[in-house]
């Protein structure tokens, strides 16, 4: 037996049972689903009728339960299932929910809370104020440990192949922390400026806000922080890491994949050398992305993020043999040579001068060769991004006419739709469903392009519709230059002998580890996947570096999990969190098409700081936690652990005490009362928070406008004694807590009028009637009559329509500036989940049934399972404690009986 007894729920009743049983010498497992024990009582202002401070008398009990030698406390834990073990005891599965904080290390200093960049409504203050996502439940929390709220990985972050925490940097931008936002991107990808401009932004497509409008412009925000940072830091602020590894790494290719891998390996302390065949580093970034999309000074600055770590880049240094690199002393080699070989159309005349491949054309322009296309007619064949770039570049070189010819339809273009639209705006003519069949020359140069119209037929094996020529549809047009951009393929010829290749010429590498057949040889980027996006290449470079590091350290590649993350947050749940999402529309601006085709200056204009702040403010924080990492960096105890996951433990226990408590009736279900719609209609629990010693504001105010209320109404029996909401029972405490609040309000606001609308006042406990008389004598008005409806007036005051029983049932209306709904008590459904077999029976109101209520108050339908406190029905605090004491005694009796059983 692991424990004599498990107590489920550590509210006042659960704590009482646990401490009593612990005092008797039993080993107790106390399980609480919230991060702190104390239940609802700790959040109350005072207790009736003595007006003792609820938190002052709760905290010592909480401290006692937490520090008791015989009690093992598990907070933030949920009992998943309890099964009888057949011999009088039970087997319980208890899940430790991930707090993303190592409780053993957390000292409760709240530094994480101060650093956290996301705010959410504070449930411990009934949503009256906000709290941080990294938080300690409330100041009196026991144990005082921080917890991070995470609803999954935000869709933007989840979509990023490089694992860039988009939600995180947006959250930092929103705080005005532009440098920190830059640093956060840099943690996951070295080429921040490049991605801020030329990334095709999978994040944006997944943004939940795209569904409701005003989505933050994620990529442009990244560009903003890169520009902001680079303008202030011409060089990286760091040098080589202090960590030094004795193994050396060679990287072949200085495109995004190679640079990324080199960056992450160098950060781990490896000496890294990049071998680049071209005269300058950057791969495709330099040779095929036009300046109007990606200025080369940005690429240079991005590359310095890598070289600052001590990475050496050898340019004009083609690698002829990988095994020679190995012999030269490199312990591991990464091949990231991309797919620089243009595919051909395989039609007559393709070799004519005046017919160029897309990347040849772009490379010529980008390498500074002056091409003068003034007055020339240019056709660009293809539907990908290279084709669009070539077409837009041709326009900028002065071409009189640029046609983009694609054999499929617009919807099937693999190019970014944003880019296609920009090309069209600039004057590129789009010609779909046609394909060249021959290039005809004149005087040894291209003169005419002969094409056929195409028609779509059934889908290809890759799911895209094929097109076939329509017989007899041939047509011709005159062109001075044809640019063929119909795809790229791998050029691994020189290295072919040393590596296993796929059928399409790409390098074969393990999909998870990116290790090739030779253990020391890894491959990443387009060379492995075929032509892909920059951010995918960066992601693969990072992935390869992770496994190369493991391999170099002699660790097995089997165990390592690269970039573990939570499942993606559910968009519908995100949108359901709030009733409305006001947003500010912020559009990125760009140069006018007529202007921008005149030169190669950037098309997109940068955000101003104000625009960046406004755009970032539209983020919905889908994952709740933005993963900005500020808490992790702020924690002096290194207690934040984003990789923490739920852990389920099993325990054998001798008996169970169910102390799962109650729920307050959700006041929004009383539609006529307007809770949730009218700002100045609040629940009694909200009022309790407003008058508690730990109150969110230092005075009583109404939420609508912050004014001090002067004429307050209480509506008793909200959601209790009411068959229309299926809760016919009296909640026992609403009359008395309303009287308590009325007394406290008269203390806090001596000139206020308080009216209590009631069916009748139930003041039946010790000292209760005297308390009622005292409240009456203080001047609180009692109106006997049920409320029919509450409506809101201009200015936020409320009209309460009621039946005045003392005046022959006359229907009247009264105006109040604040209405408090004295909500009833309903059963907590948690108790029904505990026993999966349904053996724990409940009564007609779904509270735990008490088969022997009169003489056996804690007995339930299961021998060995006892109930304590309000799990059995509405009780006031003294009765809940009495009941919990009875449960402890009956549990002890059961345990003793079982011990003596032969």
């Amino acid at each position: 037996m692991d424990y004599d007894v498990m107590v489920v729920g550590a509210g006042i009743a659960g704590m009482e049972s646990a401490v009593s049983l612990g005092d008797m010498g039993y080993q107790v497992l106390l399980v609480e689903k919230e991060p702190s024990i104390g239940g609802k009582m700790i959040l109350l202002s005072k207790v009736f009728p003595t007006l003792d401070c609820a938190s002052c008398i709760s905290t010592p009990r909480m401290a006692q339960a937490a520090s008791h030698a015989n009690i093992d406390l598990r907070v933030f834990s949920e009992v998943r299932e309890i099964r009888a073990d057949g011999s009088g005891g039970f087997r319980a599965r208890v899940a430790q929910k991930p707090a993303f904080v190592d409780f053993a290390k957390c000292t409760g200093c709240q530094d994480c809370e101060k650093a956290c960049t996301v705010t959410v409504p504070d449930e411990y203050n009934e949503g009256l104020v906000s709290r941080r996502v990294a938080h300690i439940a409330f100041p009196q929390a026991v144990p005082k440990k921080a917890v991070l709220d995470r609803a999954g990985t935000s869709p933007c972050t989840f979509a990023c192949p490089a694992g860039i925490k988009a939600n995180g940097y947006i959250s930092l931008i929103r705080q005005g922390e532009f440098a920190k936002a830059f640093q956060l991107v840099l943690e996951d990808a070295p080429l921040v400026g490049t991605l801020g401009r030329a990334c095709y932004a999978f994040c944006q497509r997944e943004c939940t806000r795209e569904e409701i409008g005003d989505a933050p412009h994620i990529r442009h925000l990244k560009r903003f922080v890169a520009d902001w940072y680079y303008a202030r830091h011409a060089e990286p602020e760091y040098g080589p890491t202090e960590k030094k590894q004795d193994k050396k790494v060679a990287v072949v290719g200085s495109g995004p994949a190679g640079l990324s891998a080199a960056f992450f390996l160098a950060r781990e302390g490896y000496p890294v050398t990049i071998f680049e065949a071209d005269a300058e580093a950057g791969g495709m970034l330099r040779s095929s992305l036009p300046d109007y999309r990606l200025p080369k000074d940005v690429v240079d600055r991005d590359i310095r993020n890598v070289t600052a770590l001590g990475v050496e880049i050898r340019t004009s240094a083609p690698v002829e043999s990988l095994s020679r690199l190995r012999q030269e002393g490199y312990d591991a080699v990464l091949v990231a040579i991309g797919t620089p070989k243009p595919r051909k159309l395989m039609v007559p005349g393709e070799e004519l001068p005046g017919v160029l491949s897309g990347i040849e054309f772009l490379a010529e322009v980008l390498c500074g060769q002056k091409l003068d296309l003034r007055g020339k007619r240019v056709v660009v064949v293809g539907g990908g991004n290279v084709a669009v770039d070539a077409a837009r570049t041709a326009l900028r070189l002065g071409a009189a006419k640029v046609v983009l010819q694609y054999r499929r339809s617009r919807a099937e273009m693999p190019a970014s739709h944003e880019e296609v639209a920009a090309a069209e705006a600039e004057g590129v003519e789009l010609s779909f469903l046609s394909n060249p069949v021959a290039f005809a020359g004149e005087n040894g140069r291209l003169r005419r392009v002969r094409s056929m119209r195409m028609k779509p037929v059934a889908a290809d094996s890759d799911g895209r519709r094929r097109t076939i020529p329509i017989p007899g549809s041939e047509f011709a047009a005159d062109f001075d230059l044809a640019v063929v951009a119909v795809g790229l393929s791998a050029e691994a010829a020189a290295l072919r002998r040393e590596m296993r290749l796929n059928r399409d010429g790409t390098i074969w590498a393990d999909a998870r580890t990116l290790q090739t057949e030779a253990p020391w040889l890894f491959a990443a980027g387009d060379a492995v996947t075929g032509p892909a996006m920059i951010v995918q290449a960066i992601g693969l470079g990072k992935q390869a570096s992770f496994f190369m590091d493991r391999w170099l350290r002699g660790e097995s590649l089997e165990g390592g999990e690269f970039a573990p993350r939570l499942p993606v947050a559910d968009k519908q749940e995100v949108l359901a969190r709030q009733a409305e999402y006001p947003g500010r529309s912020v559009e990125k601006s760009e140069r006018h098409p007529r202007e921008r085709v005149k030169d190669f200056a950037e098309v997109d204009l940068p955000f101003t700081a104000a625009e960046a702040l406004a755009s970032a403010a539209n983020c919905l924080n889908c994952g709740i936690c933005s993963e900005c990492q500020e808490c992790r960096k702020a924690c002096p105890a290194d207690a934040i652990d984003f990789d923490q996951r739920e852990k389920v433990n099993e325990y054998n226990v001798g008996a169970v005490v169910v102390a799962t408590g109650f729920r307050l009736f959700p006041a929004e279900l009383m539609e006529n009362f307007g809770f949730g719609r009218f700002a100045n209609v609040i629940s009694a629990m909200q009022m309790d928070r407003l008058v508690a010693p730990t109150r969110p504001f230092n005075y009583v105010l109404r939420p609508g406008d912050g004014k001090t209320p002067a004429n307050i109404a209480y509506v008793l029996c909200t959601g209790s004694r009411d068959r229309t909401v299926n809760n016919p029972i009296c909640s026992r405490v609403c009359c008395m807590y309303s009287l308590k609040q009325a007394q406290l309000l008269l203390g806090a606001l001596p000139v206020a009028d308080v009216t209590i609308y009631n069916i009748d006042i139930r003041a039946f406990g010790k000292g209760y009637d005297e308390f009622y008389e005292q409240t009456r004598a203080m001047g609180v008005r009692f109106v006997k009559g049920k409320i029919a409806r509450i409506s809101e007036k201009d200015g936020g005051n409320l009209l309460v329509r009621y039946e005045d029983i003392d005046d022959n049932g006359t229907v009247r209306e009264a105006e109040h500036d604040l209405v408090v709904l004295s909500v009833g008590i309903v059963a907590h459904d948690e108790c029904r989940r505990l026993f999966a077999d349904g053996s724990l029976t409940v009564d007609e109101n779904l509270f735990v049934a008490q088969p022997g209520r009169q003489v056996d108050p804690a007995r339930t339908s299961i021998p060995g399972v006892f109930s304590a406190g309000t799990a059995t029905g509405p009780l006031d605090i003294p009765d809940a404690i009495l009941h919990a004491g009875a449960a402890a005694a009956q549990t002890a009796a059961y345990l003793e009986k079982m011990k003596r059983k032969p």
Partner: protein
Amino acid sequence: MSEFNPRILVFSTDNVSDPGIDLAGRNKMHYPAKVFVITLPCSSAIKPRWITHALRSGFDGVFIAADGSDCSYVPDCTKRTAAVVGSAQAQLKEKALEPARVRMAAVCSVCAESFQKHMLSFSAALRKLGRADGRKVQGGGHGL
């Protein structure tokens, strides 16, 4: 000359008096800025030599925010803590320092106002006593 602001060292307990002190800060209640708080599980474990050490190291007064009867560790916490204070005061007397530089009071988990009042009155009392000249206190342990 600037006014003398006594430095006060407060010993609080992590579950009971500390949240109360924390609350005073959260509610932005004003009390002297030269109040420094060290948290421990239970006030009865404070060593008298820590108090003399504090007064020798630049503090002008030591305040023990005790749990009183709320202590979850020992039922006679008040008595034990009182004995610590008594013994510390005796040591101070020997070193020619005023025993009134050590104070003890129960502070509950929401006693923000009472803590504020204690700090204001203790600070005022220490101002009258003047600086605890560390040089007067000889010897003592290095418990801090």
